[in-house]
């Protein structure tokens, strides 16, 4: 008795983004993980950690952690908007800080890729503890699509010409 093998199911957006996060050393080092992903949208979380504090007097998390979270959240939203896997790279990232993050609290980033073209993706994101209506920071970013075009694995081990 032989049954035909079920057709392979393409990976879901959540699976693609989870693989991307676990394969990215810097997001792993910061403990950034996926909360949810939907079409062109992604939600990531960065846990509060004592070793990530940016100002020892206040206990507020370093801006560098929030910019990594927002950058990665925007990248995840771009991947969630694409129909095929392609490499992406941040072109520019603007972050506006509304207030300091609350010490002791995890930070969530919610990103939306609101326009995807063949070469460029445009993204907005917000970072908050409880609600996007009470943001810590807002971000806008542009990403290059197929940023690896023509470059081979390991090509960055050579100095630029």
């Amino acid at each position: 008795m032989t049954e035909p093998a079920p057709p392979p199911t393409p990976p879901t957006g959540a699976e693609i983004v989870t693989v991307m996060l676990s394969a990215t050393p810097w997001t792993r080092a910061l403990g950034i993980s996926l909360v949810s992903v939907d079409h062109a949208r992604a939600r990531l979380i960065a846990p509060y950690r004592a070793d990530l504090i940016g100002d020892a007097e206040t206990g507020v998390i370093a801006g560098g952690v929030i910019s990594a979270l927002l950058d990665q959240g925007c990248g995840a939203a771009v991947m969630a908007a694409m129909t095929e896997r392609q490499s992406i790279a941040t072109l520019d990232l603007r972050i506006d800080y509304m207030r300091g993050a609350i010490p002791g609290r995890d930070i969530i980033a919610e990103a939306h890729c609101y326009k995807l073209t063949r070469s460029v993706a445009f993204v907005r994101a917000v970072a908050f503890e409880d609600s996007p209506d009470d943001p810590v920071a807002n971000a806008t970013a542009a990403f290059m699509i197929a940023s690896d075009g023509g470059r081979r694995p390991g090509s960055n081990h050579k100095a630029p010409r």
Partner: protein
Amino acid sequence: MSTEPQAAAPTEAEVRARLHSAPFAMFFGVDLELRGDELTLVLPYREDLVGNVMLPALHGGVLGALLEITALTTVSLRQRQTHLPKTIDITIDYLRSGRPVPTYARAKVTRLGRRIASVRAEAWQFERADPIAALHGHFLLTPE
């Protein structure tokens, strides 16, 4: 012309101690060099700073963090203050992918007002004239 004595410029060891008082700066592994009034932040390469393992390339958040720390440290040095300014906004341009080598960054305070500092910073690896990322930002100065 003012005859008031100027506060002594902080030494490299003092600026480094201030930088490393932030747990994140220690976790990040960033160091600095101060020659006269010229401050350079130095980030040695480590595998966990990578964002793209295929090339490999430094994570965008790594270059953003380095540039922001460079801007904050440079402003507090110009201000002769121990309190860190607060970031209002930063814009980061990614110009080249960061290679698996040390990265350097310097900032220029384009205007130091009473409440706000406007800052530009650049990060480079092989040649200073060929930056891999640039920052433009505004910082809120905290009264002593």
